[in-house]
C-alpha cells in the first residue's frame, strides 16, 4: 500500500499538481493516475519504480512512498567530531542491509520508553534502569546489559568497523559505535576493537541517545550521554552503598599499591570496569580530587590492566579475515556457532544469503571479498543447510 498523501505532495512539488503531466511521466493514462490518487484502484507493484523515477525520489523518499520509515543514525565517536561522510554512508548502508533482510525484525518492545525530554543526569539514568529493570545501585556489566537488551529486542551488533569501512582511522577520533533507528526498529552497532569495559560504556552511551531520541546530537548531548553511561556503569549509589570497599581507592595514605591492585582485580572480575573509568567516576562524584595522588595512582594502574584486557575482536573475531578465504569460511562455519549474542549479525548475514534474501554480490561488498568467491561460499552454506534438512527428514535419523 503506497502512501497516497506523500505521493500527492510530491506530484504537487514536481508537477505543480498537474496529474496529467505526472501520468505522462509514469506512462499511464490520466484516469489511471486519478484512480490511484482517489484510491479507486491499487498501484501495481512494477509501477512503483516508474512513479519514484518520474518524481525523482531519493532512497529515503522512495521508502516514504512505500511506507517505510527513514533510517536515522547516531554515532559515538572518540573525539566528538561528526562522522566522516564515507563512514556515515557505509554505516547507513550496513544498517539498512539488516533492516531490509527482514522487515519484521528488531522491533522494539513496547515496554522500552523512548524519546523522553530529560536533561537531568539522575533522571536519565533512572529511566534507562527502569527500562532495563535493573536496580539503581547495580553496575551494568557486559553480560547483564546484553541479556536485558535482548529481552527488549534491542540487538547489539558487534562489527569489525575498520575491516568493513565503518571507521577511517585506528587511532583517536574514530567511530566506535552507532545506533540505527528505523521507525520502531532499533540496532546498536559496536566496534569489535573495543574491550568489554569500553563496549559496555559505548552501549550505555547509545542507550542514552535512544532514550532521548537524539538525531543529530550536539557536543553537549554527547557529553550528557557520556555522563549517563558513567552513571550506569559506575553508579553513584553503588559507591555510596560500599564506602569501605572503595576506600582502598580514595585513601592512598592507608592503602598500599598492592592492595589497590588486588582490590581492583577483584572488582574487575565482577564488573566490566577499567581503572581509568573508576578514577573518573570517583573524581566526578567527589571521592577523590582531580590532581590527587589517588587519581594518578588509578591512571597508572590503567596502563597495567590495559595490557591484559582483550578486545572483542581478539576474543571472538580472530578468524574474521576477508583476506584469507579459508579462515573466513572457518569463522562462518564454526566460530559463529559458539555465541549467538556476539555473532548475531554474522549469523543473520549467513542465513539471509543462504536463503536468498541477500545477494551474494552484496555479501561480497560487505565482506570486501570477490563476488565469485562470495557466490561459492553462499552455495556451500545453502548445500549444508539442504543436507541438514535432508537429515531431519530422513526417518533413519529419527531412530
Amino acid at each position, binding site marked *: 500500500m503506497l502512501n497516497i498523501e506523500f505521493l500527492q505532495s510530491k506530484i504537487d512539488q514536481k508537477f505543480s499538481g498537474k496529474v496529467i503531466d505526472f501520468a505522462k511521466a509514469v506512462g499511464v493514462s490520466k484516469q489511471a493516475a486519478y484512480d490511484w490518487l482517489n484510491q479507486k484502484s491499487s498501484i501495481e*507493484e512494477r509501477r512503483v519504480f516508474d512513479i519514484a523515477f518520474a518524481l525523482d525520489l531519493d532512497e529515503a523518499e*522512495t521508502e516514504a512512498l*512505500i511506507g517505510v520509515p527513514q533510517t536515522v543514525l547516531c554515532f559515538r565517536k572518540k573525539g566528538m567530531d561528526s562522522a566522516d561522510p564515507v563512514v556515515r554512508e557505509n554505516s547507513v548502508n550496513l544498517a539498512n542491509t539488516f533492516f531490509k533482510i*527482514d522487515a519484521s525484525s528488531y522491533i522494539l518492545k513496547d515496554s522500552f520508553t523512548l524519546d523522553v525530554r530529560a536533561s537531568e543526569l539522575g533522571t536519565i539514568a533512572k529511566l534507562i534502569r527502569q527500562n532495563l529493570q535493573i536496580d539503581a545501585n547495580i553496575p551494568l556489566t557486559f553480560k547483564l546489559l546484553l541479556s536485558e537488551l535482548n529481552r527488549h529486542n534491542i540487538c547489539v551488533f558487534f562489527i569489525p568497523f575498520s575491516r568493513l569501512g565503518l571507521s577511517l582511522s585506528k587511532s583517536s577520533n574514530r567511530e566506535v559505535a552507532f545506533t540505527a533507528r528505523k521507525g520502531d526498529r532499533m540496532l546498536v552497532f559496536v566496534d569489535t576493537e573495543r574491550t568489554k569495559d569500553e563496549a559496555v560504556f559505548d552501549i550505555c552511551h547509545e542507550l542514552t541517545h535512544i532514550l532521548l531520541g537524539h538525531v543529530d546530537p550536539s557536543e553537549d548531548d554527547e557529553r550528557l550521554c557520556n555522563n549517563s553511561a558513567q552513571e550506569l556503569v559506575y553508579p553513584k549509589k553503588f559507591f555510596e552503598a560500599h564506602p569501605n570497599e572503595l576506600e582502598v581507592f580514595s585513601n592512598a595514605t592507608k592503602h598500599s599499591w598492592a592492595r589497590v591492585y588486588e582490590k581492583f582485580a577483584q572488582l574487575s572480575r565482577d564488573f566490566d570496569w577499567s581503572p581509568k573509568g573508576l578514577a573518573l567516576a570517583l573524581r566526578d562524584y567527589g571521592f577523590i580530587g582531580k590532581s590527587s595522588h589517588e587519581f594518578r595512582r588509578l591512571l597508572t594502574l590503567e596502563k597495567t590492566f590495559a595490557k591484559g584486557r582483550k578486545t572483542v575482536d581478539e576474543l571472538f573475531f580472530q578468524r574474521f579475515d576477508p583476506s584469507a578465504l579459508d579462515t573466513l569460511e572457518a569463522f562462518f562455519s564454526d566460530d559463529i556457532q559458539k555465541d549467538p549474542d556476539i555473532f548475531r549479525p554474522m549469523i543473520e548475514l549467513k542465513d*539471509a544469503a543462504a536463503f536468498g*534474501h541477500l545477494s551474494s*554480490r552484496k555479501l561480497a*561488498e560487505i565482506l570486501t571479498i570477490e563476488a565469485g*568467491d562470495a557466490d561459492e561460499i553462499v552455495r556451500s552454506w545453502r548445500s549444508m543447510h539442504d543436507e541438514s534438512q535432508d537429515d531431519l527428514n530422513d526417518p533413519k535419523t529419527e531412530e
Partner: protein
Amino acid sequence: MTQKPKSKQSSTRLVICDSNVIIMMSIFKPSVMFKCKYTFGELAVHKSAITEIERWLRPDSKKLKKFGKPLIEDALRYCSSLETDFQEPALAEREKYHRIMSGLENGLLAAEKGMPTSTVDKDLLLYAKKHNASLATQEQTLRSLGRKVIAHDRILSFEDLVVDAIRQKLLTESEVRSDIDTLTRMGESLRTDGQHKIEAALNPRNVVKKT
C-alpha cells in the same frame, strides 16, 4: 582478437545475461544456448558480467578451483561475441536508478523479506530497465528486486532459456537430461521451479493442470 562490442539496436529485444547464466550455458550445450534465437529476444552481455568472469581466473579464485581454466576461458569466448555496448548512463542518472532501487529493496509488505543487492546487481537491472530488456539470472535476491523494477515476465532464468530451446526443437530430451547431469556434476544445480518447467517442456502431456 578482441571483438568490438555490439551497439544496441533500439528495435531489438534483448536478454541481458548474468555471469551465473553464462557459465551454465557454457556447460550445457553451448553450441545451442549461445546461438539460439530466443523468443524472449537476443542475448546480450554487459561488460560488468565479463569482468566478473575474468576475475574468476585469479589463481586463488573459488570459481577457478570449481570450473577450471578451460571452461572459464570458453565462457569468456562465448560471451565476447555477445558483449553489448549499452551506452553507460551519466553518473547522475545511474545514481538516480540506484537510489530508487535501494528504496525498493525494503519490500512493500511488512511481512515480506527484503532484498539487499549490490551495485553490480543494480547496474544489471538498470540496463534491463533502460533498454526495455529482459534479465536472465539465477540470483534469487536479484530476481525478487527485478520483479519490482521491470515486468515480472522479463525476469528470466537459465531454465527459461532451456525451455525456449526445447520448444524450438533445438534440444532433444536425452541431450537435456545428460547435460543437466553434467551441470550437477560441475556443482551447478537448477532452480526447483525451473526444473519443473523443463520437465513440463520435455513431457507436456504429463503436466498436471492446476485446478
